[in-house]
């Protein structure tokens, strides 16, 4: 794991970011109810935000004082291209989920990421994605009736149509 006497690539930036975030949260916590009373809704948020500011401050201080770097390189060890690409895929998924709907987005996501990670094999990727998606759909949508965003595929109507076909008029 990490040698705690040395800092990794990007560590100062991350810890600095956490410190700034903590400060913002402390201000937001103060805005809830100020120093009104010990039982006010803002009491605990302020206390924990303060703890975040102090601890992240200490962590940052330690980073800055300790200027020795270990041999890590940001793009190789912390955020390699595979991670960046998958993060982008996931972000794309989140953006497309509502307008496009669950089924097409998931299929696209699964197929693209398997193709990317395996560096090819379109037929394999499509088959695996379809089977996996079908399983997820059956478990979540049909058994657990989780209503994922339908988007462009009118799955509720299709399900009802299938139901009518097999069960007669339900």
């Amino acid at each position: 794991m990490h040698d705690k006497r040395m800092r990794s690539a990007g560590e100062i930036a991350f810890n600095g970011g956490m410190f700034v975030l903590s400060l913002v949260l402390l201000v937001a916590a103060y805005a809830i109810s100020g120093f009104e009373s010990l039982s006010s809704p803002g009491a605990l948020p302020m206390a924990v935000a303060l703890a975040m500011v102090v601890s992240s401050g200490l962590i940052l201080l330690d980073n800055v004082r300790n200027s020795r770097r270990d041999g890590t390189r940001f793009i190789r060890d912390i955020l390699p291209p595979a991670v960046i690409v998958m993060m982008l895929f996931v972000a794309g998924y989140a953006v497309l989920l509502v307008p496009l709907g669950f089924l097409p987005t998931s299929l696209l996501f699964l197929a693209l990421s398997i193709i990317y990670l395996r560096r090819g094999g379109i037929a394999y990727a499509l088959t695996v994605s379809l089977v996996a998606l079908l399983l997820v759909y059956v478990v979540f949508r049909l058994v657990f009736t989780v209503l994922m965003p339908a988007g462009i595929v009118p799955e509720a109507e299709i399900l009802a149509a299938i139901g009518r076909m097999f069960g007669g008029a339900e």
Partner: protein
Amino acid sequence: MEALGYFLTPWLDIKLLFLVAAGTFAGVYVGAIPGLSVTMAVSILIGFTFTWDVYPALCLMVGIFMGGVYGGSRTAILLNIPGAPSAIATAMDGYPLAQKGLAGEAIGISTVMSFVGGLIGIAVLALAAPTVSDFALTFQPRDFMLLAVLGILLVGSLSGESLVKGIFAGAMGLLIGTVGMDPLTAEERFTFGFTQLWGGISFIAVMIGMFGVSEALAQLHHVDKTAVKQTISRIVPSFASVRKYLPLSLQTSSIGVIIGALPGTGGDIAALMAYDHAKRVTKNPEVPFGQGAKEGLVAPETANNAAVGGAFIPMLTLGIPGDAVTAIMIGALYIHGLNPGPMLMIDQPQMFWFITGALALANIFMLIFGLTGIRLFTKIVEMPRTVLIPLILLLSIVGAYAVNNAITDVYWMLAFGVLGYFMKSYGYQLGPVILGVILSRLLDENWRRAIISDQGSLVSLFKGMLTSPLSLVLLAMVVMIFVSQTPIWKRWRNKAGLPASGGDHNAPGSGA
């Protein structure tokens, strides 16, 4: 002897027997998949079993509950992704074992120990339910507050290499738990004007993000490495090793039962507290904690299954839910025309014994299904990562959405996944974040209730703590654990030549 007859009803009726088995089997898988929760499964079963009699419906629900609490450990051990909140502690020593190719052994021991824990929980339910529920009722707001503080001190044993980073992560978790509309005053906290944030950030979304997505992203680093080949020759642990862990499992099961029986706390807190307890009392583990100590598996797995029996105690004696699942079961009993409450034990004692019997049966099925399906499960880890990682990501997204049917939860889950990835990369542990989220409301609400009850006076709150025996014991435990984690105490102990307890992490503060 009538009681025994009712107790055995689900054992002797082939249909009920089958339903308990089916429920337990389904529960193991529901529990293992992050995002499918027992709470969800049971509430769907209410609709599904609406037209049934109450007994078969209960059999199915009890089975799912028992199996589900256990099933969470599967993915925790195999993938380092806890399938349920109560398996968070299990991952800490279970996954290192899987990395050594000992997943089969780890699952074996956690299955047998879950069975032992479940059995103890059921025994307490059967023999001492009224006493335990009366005890649970004596907890005042200040006692719940002290309990929460006790939980927060676990940060010490969860933070790994750096205590300061652990404190930061824990505080962050506590803060995440307060986001949204304050349940006590309807004041908005950290909502920054977004109505989507009124409902707060779902704890399950944070958990799936921090453990599921961030773990999947981290595993991309060695996507080409072939998976560790799992040896599954020895699954059933030897009798000697079970006997070795029996004293520990008795202690951790007691923690499980009590925490389970307290309204508002459940198996997740119980498992983490039990893990901490194991670390404290195990003087010389064969392998250090965090690297695959069996004790670190035994403790949370006994505690969370013992908490199942515990959760039924206030439900069956008083009609008060012991956790989220029993709350739904109370609703189910109402729908089936029963009135859960203090009169249930008196008017319908058969219900109490029937549920106890079904639980005991489910516990046995859990052992059977737990020990037989392992080969199939370990195949999952041996799947190529190029397929496994996208699948985990997809399941995480669907699971986060399913909790509250909210797309916002998906965004949060992804955001925490990325944050968790970076935190991991820079030596932060994620356990304290989840601990903070779990304990946030318990601490916040009960602190405020305690201080309001004493009309805002800290002095009288303190006086109340010192005059109540229960509060005094809890306070003493808080002080003891706190002091034992401070450097001065450790130095003194080392000088005195005593073995340092919890010597797994270096001197606190070393990271700063």
